[in-house]
């Protein structure tokens, strides 16, 4: 079995079978026609041999389908480019030693769920003492003063705190993404920090379930972290990037 990296297709149980599973709802009453419509729709999406394996009336005006199909398209993996954070992930002890050796002072890290966002689960997982899933949060790190401002912090309030606490780094969390509200919130923060003249003084990082590094950089952030991130991932990035910047300043 030789995998052709220039033309990768989904794998079900045979190379290049293109097997994909889909599920979706159509906003129509359940009927034979609805089932056939679902099948034709999947065909139009570019799948060969679509099979509706399950369908159900899920309340007047709504029908649910599970469909299998075979993808026609393939992808050349050798040409795929991803913007990645170049970071050497260290453990808590290594990070604490790094701060002690390379900074000789405590780093100030301010975190907040900004504007409308009231969901602190992400920022708490990174910042609070207990952290998440056995990975201690930044509050527990020697050498880091972690300030978790909590939920619904306005951009203006956050900017004031950044100045007051002499923040080295700012962690912004956005969980709610309905109607792209997170983009509006994140953009507003960058604008306010620029207007205050403090954007370049801090490392600005965003995290959330729908965030990745590329998206973060497009919005004017230094880095973005998505699902599966722990405190040490963020802290490793912070200390190394702050160190790199310090060096740049000295060289200038």
């Amino acid at each position, binding site marked *: 079995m030789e995998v052709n990296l220039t033309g990768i297709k989904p794998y079900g149980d045979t190379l290049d079978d293109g097997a994909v599973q889909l*599920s*979706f*709802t159509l906003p129509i009453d359940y009927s034979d026609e609805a089932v056939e419509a679902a099948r034709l729709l999947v065909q139009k999406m570019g799948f060969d041999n679509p099979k509706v394996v399950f369908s*159900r009336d*899920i*309340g*007047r*005006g*709504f029908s*649910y389908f599970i469909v299998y199909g075979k993808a026609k398209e393939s992808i050349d993996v050798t040409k795929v480019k991803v913007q990645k954070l170049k970071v050497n992930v260290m453990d808590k002890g290594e990070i604490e030693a790094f701060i002690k050796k390379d900074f000789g002072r405590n780093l100030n890290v301010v975190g907040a769920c900004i*504007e*409308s*966002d*009231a*969901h*602190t*689960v992400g920022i*708490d997982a990174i910042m*609070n*003492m*207990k952290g*998440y*899933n*056995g990975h201690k949060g930044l509050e527990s790190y020697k050498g880091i003063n972690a300030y978790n401002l*909590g*939920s*619904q912090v306005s951009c203006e309030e956050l900017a004031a705190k950044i100045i007051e606490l002499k923040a080295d780094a700012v962690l912004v969390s956005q969980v*709610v*993404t*309905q*109607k792209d*509200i997170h983009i509006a919130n994140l953009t507003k923060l960058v604008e306010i920090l620029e207007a205050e003249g403090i954007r370049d003084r801090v490392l600005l990082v965003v995290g959330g*379930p729908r965030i990745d590094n590329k998206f973060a950089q497009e919005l004017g952030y230094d880095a973005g972290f998505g*699902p*599966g991130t722990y405190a040490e991932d963020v802290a490793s990035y912070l200390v190394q990037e702050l160190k790199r910047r310090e060096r740049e300043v000295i060289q200038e």
Partner: protein
Amino acid sequence: MHRLNLDQALIAKARNGAIKIANDIQSHIDQRTTTSVERAVLRLFGIDGITEDGIPLPNVIVDGILHSGRLGLGAGYWFANGILHYQISPQDLAQEIAAGKINLTSVPVKDEGAIREQMEELSQLGISRIVEKKLERDMLMARLGQGIEPLLYVIVATGNIYEDVKQAQAAARQGADIIAVIRTTGQSLLDYVPYGATTEGFGGTYATQENFRIMRQALDEVGEEAGKYIRLTNYCSGLCMPEMAAMGAMERLDVMLNDSMYGIIFRDINMERTFVDQYLSRIINGFANIIINTGEDNYLTTADAYEAAHTVTASQFINEQLALKCGMVPEQIALGHAYEINPEMENSFVYELAQALLARELFPRSPLKYMPPTKYMTGNIFKGHIQDCMFNIASIMSGQSIHLLGMLTEAIHTPHISDRYLAVESARYVFTAMRDIAQEIYFKEDGIIQKRAQQVLTDAVSFLEKVAEVGLMESISMGMFADISRNPKGGKGFTGVVYKGPGYFNPFIDAMLKGGN
């Protein structure tokens, strides 16, 4: 049923601690009123509507009295005096005040007895409307019946009330018993209630009286079709807690999320304000036969579910005592808890079951609200569906009452319509397949489950005794709940707290304290 071999003396100790805490807080509450309490009084007098600038009339009136430094007598006092003087309808008086034509606190003051009599008369509008809604609910429930426990509770959260209606009706047709309309993110911090039907919200829909009415009507319609009464839930929380209670009671909501400490801890709302606000809000909910859901489950989103389990239990005791002070009966007090232990932990399900059984045994008459896993849900929807299934099993095995359905896409988005269908299907499967399992099981004496439950209770007792000793406000300042610390004078809404003057009178407190049922 006693399956955990709990020490009854220890349970009594826990309750005594909570009673002491509640008595202490009550003496704080009795001295104060708030802007939102007074706005609720006006709403129950029938005052509704907004100014040309979109400011609700109750806000305009109460802010005027507050700024003149006279709110300590209560808005009802000044408003009743205004009615006596001008002899016009309440709504007309409200509009004249909003238009700047009348300044309530400079109206010549009538005889105290006449004012109180006028207040009593004004209060009849709200009281009779709520009584009428209670009767309506009783009749509908008698005719249509209701689902069997654990009741299936689902949320809708589109941001658009008309879209919410479609999703809520679909959910009811799929088998849901309770529909909760999630509020738009940020509403808890608004110091006013938005007005009218709304179609723009994020992660939820504005709670307005008109939106309440629209959804109530939609659920009544679909209830006829489904052959059971469909309960409606909204939020009685945030800076407008008592007003939400008033609106919900007048529009026949059935369940309200209403915690005595949630706003303080998780929304940084001022502590003094919240304790006063929750008092009137629960008096109204109690009188209106509304079930309240408390928010202990939220502690576990910040604190660890295994280590902090006793804080949930302790808070349940406190919430219970504070609610009983408001004339509520245990059947209205749906104490919250959640399935949030790390699923990778060995025996995580066994500990979850112990906790769920513990809550059930400690509060046998309360319709407990059991919350699904959220913290350890990931983008792996297939595993997520299994986590939710395990939660369903724990619920039926421990005899829970209100079962908030977990969604396999919890970590991804507000639920798609099919997510809700899959959740209802899974819960119905488990509940049907295991209908009588709870009556079939005894737990091993001194086994993991009994020992864990006993340990959590023991820890809860020491926790409650400590809180009783230092006082609830001080305990919250010390970060004893959910690892979050709040200052009694800090947070949002503190400027809306005022001391009651000697002649203060709130006509709804006495009348409604007669309680539910």
